[in-house]
């Protein structure tokens, strides 16, 4: 399966999903005008990937800011991971000064049953 790579823009994050190493990364800010337009292709890729996945995988998130419609998109993304029943760990990174992203991670963690680590970056 091809890797998924999307370059960052001002309002969308850098996405690099590697199907060989099973490391999936999303880095940056997310507040596009239309979250569906940006995230739907990511969901499509993930569905195929998850159906073929036999190894453990890690989703690494290093976000600076997400708006509410992106936060909705992340909820859908986490649901996809959770419902797949595959061995997936989420590593939610936050900058030590970014309380909003810390809180946002804690609220996702509350809502999910998959392993969800919250990691402070200096």
């Amino acid at each position: 399966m091809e890797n998924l790579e999307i370059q960052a823009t001002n309002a969308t994050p850098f996405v690099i999903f590697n199907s060989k190493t099973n490391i999936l990364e999303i880095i940056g800010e997310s507040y596009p005008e239309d979250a569906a337009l940006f995230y739907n292709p990511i969901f499509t890729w993930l569905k195929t990937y998850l159906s073929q996945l036999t190894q453990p995988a890690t989703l690494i998130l290093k976000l600076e800011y997400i708006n509410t419609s992106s936060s909705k998109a992340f909820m859908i993304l986490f649901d996809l991971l959770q419902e797949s029943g595959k061995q997936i760990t989420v590593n939610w990174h936050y900058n030590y000064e970014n309380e909003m992203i810390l809180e946002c991670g804690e609220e996702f963690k509350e809502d999910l049953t998959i392993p969800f680590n919250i990691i402070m970056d200096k």
Partner: protein
Amino acid sequence: MLTTQLYEFMQQLNNLKILFCYAGPISQGIVEELGRNIKDQLKSESTPNLTQKVFSVYVEQIQNILNYSTQKQSQNEDSEFKSGITIIGRSNSDQYFVMAGNLVDANQKQILIQLLNKLKTMTKEELKDYFLEKRKKDKLLNEKQGAGLGLIDIARKASEPLECHFKDIDSNYSFFSIKAIIKN
């Protein structure tokens, strides 16, 4: 407008403690460009947490205008519907206000009044539960239903209940104004 009026106009903005004011057609490009400037300015004068909060309330408010306008575009080409006003002000060293205004139709007005009245009565904890519940509910991303989540989020970040006003323009349209006060 006369050149002789410009100084007075600027003084008025200063007296109202306005740091940024944009009125006119709104696009995602404007959201990003103005947002970058707001962030740079706030970073230099306040804490990272306050900067983030003001920025996020600004984004939710202005994108509500943007999404509402997009929705209207197909039915009505009137450019007024794609326009709005957004304001960031600083009332004192650790308190900002973020305001936005745009035209809404009678139906939108009813939906907004219902939601805003509901939010007014809620505690921070209730707002959080309501946000999480609403975020979980729909399994599809639909931008046109996004306004609800955005307003709940604004209420969560505001340090006082949201102030709102509807100025009726005619039998169909009102000008909707919203103000969020953000403290550290």
